[in-house]
């Protein structure tokens, strides 16, 4: 009873809360980093250096009036943000934050496939949100979103397959262990894949330079134009949770997950004093920072350029990488 | 979409039987069926789009003409 229900439930509760809190602080971090990049301070009013902003923002969003447009499809309009948030949170259940069972909720042998398939559900939130608003900008945005997410998913999945080939398992823990055995992070064995997954992740989470479904200056906010209050906040949470997911996947698959750097070098074993989850969170944090950095730097792609990039550049590279990996696997 | 439902019904049967008989052939079949369903969906929807573009309707009754 304790093992089958209580502990997993506790784990889930802790995880979900951790993710949600992480999201609020991620927003604060984004604003701060953007501020520094843009020669300004970012939030400074609430608390010392604006730290409490992370608490004030959700409160404001919860208290805000929740508007449903008169001509919206009310059920779908309510359902859409939930549909985009839930998959983003579910994914965390198979992400191991450390080697022993305490650090993960579930260890299923098709872990990676599970992540891919669950994230593919997330697109519904955006499509339905855009459609149910019964407004033109969101509709255009949701058409963009569906095309974008589907096409980038193909490239990302194909790239991940080449990593799976290298690791020889779909299991998330297995992938990390494979990196220990290889003695090298997969980022060095599969550099192309690493870059591709990260850029594909940018596209799948609708971040600049691929934030077309939102494209504030073109589509006035895209699929969540008509949303306000907590329902909008759910979309927001979903987006940032997805960013964390992508960072977590990249850190796990290419940068050794919870392992300290050079896990096979005995001389560095004092690094083991730092618990594994701290290593992992540190790596995730690094990628989150890169996400923000990219946002502060790049202009936005245009829709057709984005599709051309996905189909004409990423997918061929992904296939090429897959074939090369296959050949290397057979030869070696 | 109804076709998808029917295919799913078949898939459930196949998986159930494969589990029952401890035989993987059923699951292999399911994989094939899913592949074929994907192909069928792509082509079917392509036809619908093409048809809609030309006729501005998706009413089955007006699809009796096999040309446009």
């Amino acid at each position, binding site marked *: 009873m304790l093992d089958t229900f209580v502990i997993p439930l506790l784990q889930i509760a802790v995880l979900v809360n951790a993710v949600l809190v992480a999201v609020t602080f991620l927003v604060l971090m984004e604003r701060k980093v*953007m501020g520094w990049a*843009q020669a300004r301070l970012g939030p400074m009013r609430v608390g010392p250096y604006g730290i409490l902003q992370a608490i004030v923002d959700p409160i404001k969003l919860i208290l805000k009036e929740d508007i449903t447009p008169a001509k919206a499809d009310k059920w779908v309009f309510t359902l859409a943000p939930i549909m985009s948030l839930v998959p983003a949170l579910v994914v965390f259940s198979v992400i191991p934050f450390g080697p022993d069972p305490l650090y993960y909720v579930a260890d299923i042998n098709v872990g990676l496939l599970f992540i891919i398939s669950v994230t593919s559900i997330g697109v519904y939130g955006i499509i339905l949100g855009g459609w149910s608003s019964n407004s033109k900008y969101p509709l255009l945005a949701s058409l*963009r979103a569906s095309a974008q997410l589907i096409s980038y998913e193909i490239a990302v999945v194909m790239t991940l397959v080449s990593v799976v080939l290298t690791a020889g398992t779909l299991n998330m823990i297995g992938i990390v262990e494979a990196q220990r055995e290889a003695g090298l992070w997969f980022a060095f064995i599969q550099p192309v894949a690493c870059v591709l997954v990260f850029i594909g992740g940018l596209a799948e989470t609708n971040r600049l330079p691929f934030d077309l479904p939102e494209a504030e200056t073109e589509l006035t906010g895209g699929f969540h134009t008509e949303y306000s209050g907590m329902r909008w906040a759910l979309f927001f949470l979903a987006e940032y949770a997805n960013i964390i997911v992508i960072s977590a996947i990249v850190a796990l698959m290419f940068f050794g997950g919870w392992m300290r750097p050079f896990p096979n070098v005995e001389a560095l074993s004092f690094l083991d004093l730092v618990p594994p989850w701290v290593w992992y969170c540190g790596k995730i944090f690094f990628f989150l920072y890169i996400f923000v950095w990219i946002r502060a730097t790049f202009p*936005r792609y*245009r*829709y057709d*350029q984005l599709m051309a990039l996905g189909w004409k550049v990423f997918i061929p590279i992904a296939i090429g990488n897959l074939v090369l990996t296959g050949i290397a696997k057979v030869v070696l | 979409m109804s076709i998808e439902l029917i295919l799913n019904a078949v898939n459930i049967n196949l998986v159930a039987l494969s589990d029952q008989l401890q035989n993987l052939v059923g699951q292999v079949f399911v994989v094939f069926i899913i592949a074929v369903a994907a192909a069928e969906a792509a082509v079917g929807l392509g036809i619908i789009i093409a048809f809609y*573009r030309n006729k501005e309707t998706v009413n089955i009754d007006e699809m009796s003409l096999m040309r446009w």
Partner: protein
Amino acid sequence: MTKVIDAPRRIGQAFDTDELVLNMGPQHPSTHGVLRVVLRLDGERVVDADCVIGYIHRGVEKLCENRDWTQIVLLTDRMDYVAAATSNLGYVEAVEKLMQVEVPRRARYIRTILAELQRIASHCLWLGTHAMDIGAMTVLLYSFREREFVLDLFEEYCGARLTYNSMRVGGLPLDIPTGWDKRVLAFCDVMETKLDEYEELLTNNRIWLGRTRDIGVISGEDATALGLCGPPLRGSGVSRDVRKDEPNAAYEEFEFDIPLGTRGDTYDRYLIRLEEFKQSIRILRQAVEGLPEGPVMGKVPRLIKPPAGETYHPVESPKGELGYFIVSDGRSTNPYRFRVRPPSFCNLQALNRLCKGHLVADVVALIGTIDIVLGEVDR
């Protein structure tokens, strides 16, 4: 046989079915105010873009016909409110032309300095918003940081930061404060280094190139035929700049180049404006260093009453050729007819032409590249 009959209908329908009418604006983050563009879309491709203007029409021209000649300076501030000094300049020079007043050389120099500072400020705003429309957020903050510097200079000069009311018929109300010229030079130095920052973020950025190269191409002939002016015209390779062609203020005394584009696309217009930053800095340096001594106000009667007659006087505002057409009846203390040729308005005409065949995302880039200010379009 039936096939032949069906064919035209089929073609017609194939192009009509998916059209969507999209109202972009008047409340839209990137229509630069209250411009409303009615887009007819085929998917995301723009078939037709119809500008609807008039959302901030205040009847400035009519108001001017009911104010006396001094009060009008203040109204010109409110037209192109991000380049108020240039609007002032055009108006006072037009009246001076009508009255044939001699303006002191020092006043003309300071006017040039103000106009060029204003050009930099206006281009900063353009650069920031244009880049923001295309998604590069940081450039906006950077260019506003420099614009702030210019606004501080203006504040120091006349006390106002946006609508300066900084010129009078016959000269200037104020001489420059002590040390102001040094600070202008210091700004020139700062601005030059900051320009590199912008260029680093945008000029060779692949995404930026992809978003602006070959977008909204317009040939020199078409640009002339459409009555374009300013950077959009020069971007198409037509050399037309009022500062060179019909020099006003003190421009004939300075050396500067008129940058010209070759392709006539959005990227060329971007490069031209960046080059204009540098040319403005060049003019500023020459003007500040060669600033003559003397009075800043010419000999004008207390009550300004130009003789009967009419005049058209253009100046090169940051957005293009800003012209004032003024008719005086010689009797009353207000203009008989007051008409402005606003560059934004004339350039906005080209939007439909530029947008056709491009995507929705390009529309915002094109509105940005035209660099409109709705206060001036509507007046």
